């Protein structure tokens, strides 16, 4: 399969995002957890973000060395804008749903913050998937 630099970058971002945040949310949202979003919870989120950034930076360096880096052109920008639209729609929908759920179920801060974080991560995944789909199918 002849993938462009941008597609390789997107596949890497998607894989790392799903692996790191999959592990984080697998631990954070299952089993026993505190009712409130405390200092330990913050440190776990920060750790997940730091690990994600470190792996992504390493991957991008390897990719830049091994692949020809192309600057973005008009097709890349158009695909990215469509992907941002889908991600935005998901984020807006998730935010309104979460606002309603927090009030209706009197949700505690631990779950509320984690679900908000999950919707941001889901929006990022939708963006990457949309871009990969449009690169594959065409506009």
């Amino acid at each position, binding site marked *: 399969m002849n993938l*462009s630099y941008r*597609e390789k970058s997107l596949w890497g971002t998607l894989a790392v995002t799903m692996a790191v945040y999959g592990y984080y949310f697998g631990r954070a949202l299952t089993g026993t957890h505190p009712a409130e979003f405390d200092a330990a919870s913050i440190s776990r989120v920060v750790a997940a973000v730091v690990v994600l950034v470190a792996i992504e930076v390493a991957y991008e360096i390897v990719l830049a060395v091994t692949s020809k880096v*192309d600057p973005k*052109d*008009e*097709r890349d920008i158009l695909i990215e804008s469509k992907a941002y639209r889908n991600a935005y729609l998901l984020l807006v929908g998730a935010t309104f749903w979460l606002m309603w759920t927090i009030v209706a179920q009197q949700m505690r801060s631990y779950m509320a913050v984690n679900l908000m974080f999950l919707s941001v991560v889901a929006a990022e995944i939708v963006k990457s998937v949309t871009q990969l789909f449009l*690169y594959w199918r*065409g*506009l």
Partner: protein
Amino acid sequence: MKQDFTIRNNIRKLRFHASEMTQQELADKIGVTRQTVVAIEGEKYSPSLAVAFRMAHVFGVPLEEVFRCEPLGPQPPDSQP
């Protein structure tokens, strides 16, 4: 909005007549990536006017020789000669 026409192109033929110009060479000349040239040539992406004109300029032909518009499906009766 659903389009009732499709944009065809002669890029493969024009590249062949331009000393077998590669997709990468064409991409470099018009300022896009090779993947975008592949997508345009495969009719999976319709480029902007700027890119279309740059492409015509590279081949030294009018725009109509690079791209043409073809209707999809049957023509309405009033458009028949």
